[in-house]
């Protein structure tokens, strides 16, 4: 899926509210990056996540729904979905873990390593999902560099999430001198467009 994320409404979330957007981080958001760069490089160099954190906490990684064992040999590309999670419980959780002892138990859905693209790198848009602890810990870091999502998705998220989630956007709306109702009307009007979200 290719999405033009060049224009649209922009929200500046107050720093103290960023922690309450876990529903958004879990749902997934779009960012731009260089195509052909490895997942590992994207997270460390592009997003500023420390390698040690990556190794210690980002235990479960999916690219387009396939569990990844080696983040250095899977590459970013237009329209891909990258999902990150900490270590998960259960036999299934252990099986899905990155490079885990039980990885052969899900070999038919494992993401196969690829050779890096030889072509000139260009910008691509990808969807990132952050689950569980990582939503809380990495979500605000992604916000710093700015994220995007469809206005219609944000409307859905505002409906289904906690009041703290709503308040984060209502605070941003207040800073834009509009009240909550005006915000919702605006999102409905622009449902097909992209909204930009970043830290204030």
């Amino acid at each position, binding site marked *: 899926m290719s999405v033009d994320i060049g224009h649209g409404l922009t929200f500046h979330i107050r720093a103290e509210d960023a922690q309450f957007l876990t529903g958004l981080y879990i749902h997934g958001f779009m960012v731009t990056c260089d195509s052909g760069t490895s997942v590992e490089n994207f997270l460390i160099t592009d997003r500023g996540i420390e390698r040690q954190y990556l190794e210690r906490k980002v235990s479960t990684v*999916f690219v387009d729904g396939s569990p990844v064992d080696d983040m250095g040999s899977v590459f970013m590309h237009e329209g891909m979905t990258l999902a990150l999670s900490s270590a998960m419980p259960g036999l*299934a959780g252990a099986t899905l873990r990155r490079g885990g*002892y039980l990885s052969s138990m*899900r070999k038919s859905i494992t993401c196969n390593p690829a050779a890096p693209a030889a072509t000139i790198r260009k910008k691509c848009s990808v969807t990132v999902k952050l689950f569980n602890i990582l939503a809380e810990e990495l979500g605000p870091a992604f916000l710093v560099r700015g994220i995007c999502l469809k206005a219609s998705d944000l409307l859905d998220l505002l409906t289904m999430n906690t009041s703290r989630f709503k308040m984060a956007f209502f605070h941003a709306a207040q800073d834009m001198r509009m009240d909550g109702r005006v915000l919702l009307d605006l999102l409905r009007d622009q449902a097909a467009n992209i909204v930009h979200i970043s830290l204030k």
Partner: protein
Amino acid sequence: MEKILRINMSSESGPTLQEAPVGALAALGGRGLTSTIVAREVPPECHPLSAENKIVIAPGLLSGTVAAMSGRLSIGCKSPLTGGIKESNAGGQPAQVLARLGYAAIILEGKPKGDDLYTIFINKDGVKIAIDNSLKMLGNYATVDKLRKEFGDNITCISIGQAGEMKLAASSIACTDMEGRPARHAGRGGVGAVMGSKRVKAIILDDSGMKNREPKDPEKFRAANKVFVESLKKHAVTGEALPAYGTNVLTNILNEAGGYPTYNFKEGRFAGASKISGETMAALESERKGNPTHGCHRGCVIRCSGIYTDKDGHYVSKQPEYETVWAHGAHCGIDDIDAIAKMDFIDDDTGLDTIDTGVAIGMAMEAGVIKFGDVDGAIELLKEVGKGTPLGRIIGSGAAITGKVFGVERVPVVKGQAIPAYDPRAVKGLGVTYATSTMGADHTAGYATATNILKSGGFVDPLKAEGQVELSRNLQIATAAIDSTGMCVFVAFALLDMPEAFGALLNMLNALYGTNLTADDVTDLGKNILRLEHDFNIRAGFTKVQDRLPLFFTKQDVPPHNVHFDVTDDELDTVYNF
């Protein structure tokens, strides 16, 4: 835990009691003890609801001590759901209390002739059995409320709801938690029906005046427990993910992996997954003044449970488990977490296995009795069970029966027991365990337990294609051993990754009993349990045919990965080669 209590319900003059020293069975606990007694004493060919069947209730080897996480209770019998041997285990308080009262096991045997309903009260002064027909057809919550009025607030209860009284094949046995709520269940295999066939409504335990079990080497025991607790707290799963979000943290992950069975295993992803995920549930519980981090028994340091409240902060149910949320959620096309919590309560109150019951409702949906996603219809179907209507009795008999009654072709069961929340086409190693477990489809039968440490059955290269059969075998052996300790199966995560945690577990056992158990001894224990159980099932009439997944898993691809289960029958048949 020096004695075994036998209660024979058959006697003309009323139930008779016999207490005997535990004797040679002292080295066994939990599943090891229940499966040994069932395999020795229950005729494998007997009807599960007949007088010949027995129900064995046993705390684990470490229960009743200060060992963290040691509060799992094992309940064994011949299963009315699978027709094979069954060990179903539960959290809550009973394992600790029973062990402190000195019992390695309670065995209910025989069957009374009349329709009277019995209660069994056990405290430090002995055992009293009484007829109490006022409890007839009460739910677990009302039953416990009534018993607390009679016996006081310090009691711990093991009880059945209406489903158990009606001897329905998906009925559970409830155990009260720290707050005295009957919210922890030995859910699988219809153990409630066997207790119901003995006409025992509740076992009431009061350990007032009793102390924790004293280890042979208290200092070594304390030190090992400390290492064990520190390991659990340090580990990402037991120290972070489970306490914060509960087991339902798996919803988003399995959904992302395309292994989250949706609309009765038609698809591997559910559009409403994030609405019913652990993250969403925890956020709601926090906002509503519930509690997303709560233990199911004293001494639990992982605290993966929680208290689910409504918008006004009133108790709805304990925090539903991942498998419960899945069975009533994605499986049925329902994305309303409040409705799922309500169904969890009805299951607990009626005394039903949440997995088999949820999957049974999905069978009714598949057949068009109600539509997928029909929240009110699903709740009404559940309520039918408690009322004892013909439709309710069908649902309460589990997925296999419901599927058969309504002419459903795609019925996700193994040995008559519903397959839980992980599609075996995406994670095939799990499919091996589902197919070959002595228990029927059981996600806890082959947990990730220290296989790399135990190397039971020889070293396995997990990267080899055929590794998943060997891994499943080793996991089942290791799990059978852990199930004997009384330890919560979630300690497995720390045991898998931290050799010091496994060493601490061994040290606790050795310090408690004055033994010198090694990892090999633990492996042997697991192997012996599996051999006993497998042998029982063969004597009950099982063949290799029962060690198979339903055929649709091998023929129908599941999106998004479009994969099917392709582990061969020959490979499956090697699981018990040890």
